[in-house]
């Protein structure tokens, strides 16, 4: 344990030299590198923070834009819904109107068809009735019926008013030479005389009356005075009945 002043002095010098060496070759360069790296890291952090802020700003803008888009979409959806509702109402109204018109047309058509069917049924019923009456009267026709018809004719002729008689005279035209009377059965003399007198009275003519028979009349009479024809037979009545049915429907 001795102190060497030479070593003491050299150690001081050595240490100071070592301080200088390490300061210039180690501390300063390393600290500079650390400072540069720290600056680079801070710059990167700053850049990252800046990017983060930009990203946040972009995110905010996109969120706002999305909100605006949502609002616009909602408005467009409401407008579209309103337009759809209006269009639906308009079409529904048009459809209701069309349906009403179609219903009216259908009802009218059905009414026409129903009326037509009813008319056809009535016409068919009339025809069937006429056929039935023809068949029935054909079987029931006879001199008694004809006498009855003659009586009805005479009663009708006698019941004509003056105006009706004048109308008959005007319609028969120029006075014919003969009055034709066709009956289904042969008339008796009394019947012929009564009829002749009645006809002369109604027509005002003093002409000959020609009587003849036609079995197709079934029963009754047909009197022809010029263009004036009086139908008082079963056949003519049935024909008129059938013709009436045909004309009516």
């Amino acid at each position: 344990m001795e102190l060497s002043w030479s070593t003491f002095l050299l150690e001081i010098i050595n240490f100071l030299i070592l301080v200088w060496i390490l300061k210039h070759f180690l501390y300063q360069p390393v600290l500079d590198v650390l400072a540069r790296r720290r600056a680079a890291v801070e710059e990167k952090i700053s850049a990252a923070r800046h990017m983060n802020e930009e990203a946040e700003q972009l995110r905010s803008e996109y969120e706002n834009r999305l909100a605006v888009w949502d609002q616009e979409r909602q408005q467009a959806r409401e407008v579209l819904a309103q337009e759809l509702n209006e269009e639906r109402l308009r079409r529904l109204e048009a459809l209701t109107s069309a349906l009403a018109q179609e219903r009216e047309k259908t009802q009218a058509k059905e009414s026409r068809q129903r009326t037509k069917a009813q008319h056809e049924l009535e016409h068919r019923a009339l025809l069937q009735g006429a056929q039935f009456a023809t068949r029935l009267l054909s079987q029931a026709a006879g001199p008694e019926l004809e006498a009855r018809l003659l009586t009805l004719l005479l009663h009708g002729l006698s019941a004509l008013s003056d105006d009706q008689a004048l109308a008959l005279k005007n319609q028969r035209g120029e006075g014919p030479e003969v009055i034709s009377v066709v009956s289904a059965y042969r008339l008796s003399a009394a019947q012929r005389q009564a009829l002749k007198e009645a006809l002369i009275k109604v027509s005002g003519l003093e002409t000959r009356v020609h009587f003849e028979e036609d079995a197709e009349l079934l029963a009754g009479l047909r009197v022809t005075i010029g263009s004036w024809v009086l139908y008082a037979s079963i056949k003519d009545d049935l024909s008129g009945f059938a013709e009436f049915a045909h004309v009516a429907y």
Partner: protein
Amino acid sequence: MIRTVFVCGPLSITATVLTTWLIMAVLWLVAWLTARRLSIDPGPLQSAVEGVVSSIEEAVSAVAPQHARRILPLIGTLWIFLVGANLCGLIPGLHSPTRDLSATAALATVVFLSTIWFGVRIQGVKRYLHHYLVPSPILLPFHLLSEVTRTVALAVRLFGNMMSLEMAALLILLVAGFLAPVPILMLHIVEALVQAYIFGMLALIYVAGGIQSQQLREYKRGGPHA
């Protein structure tokens, strides 16, 4: 007994000086190899060196944050040199320079002078010397005695620990034989690191105390804005 290798004029070049030059050469080589390849993306060597320098900077900044860059070379060099000097005793044929009282006394003297140097540089001569008179001029002898004794303690503590370690290993080797002092050598590693840390930390505290004692008093007197 420190062996004198050769004499150069009035200077005796001892093994301690030669070992110190060797350590300086190695440290200079490492510093040069590291400094010439420094880059932003560090390699393994640069990462290790940066870790050492960063640790030293943090330790110095924790004690003297305002003057860290100024006193970092002194404290960092103390730590690095003392670790190398303490550990080189483990290499066969070499002895730790710190087992020589001349070397530890030189380092302690450097710390003592550095305390005065940084105090004067930062505070000024008058203000630095004034701190010996506070809180009372009566304490001036005790301040001066404290300066001397702590410097002596700094030198003797390091010298005693390192010399005793080598002595113990030598004695065990002589008594117990080959490989017997291995546990003592492992203890040597721990002790070398601990002593280097203690020496450097005390030096840091002394220097920082010399810088900041006057500042602390002014702060207490004038408030934070003084």
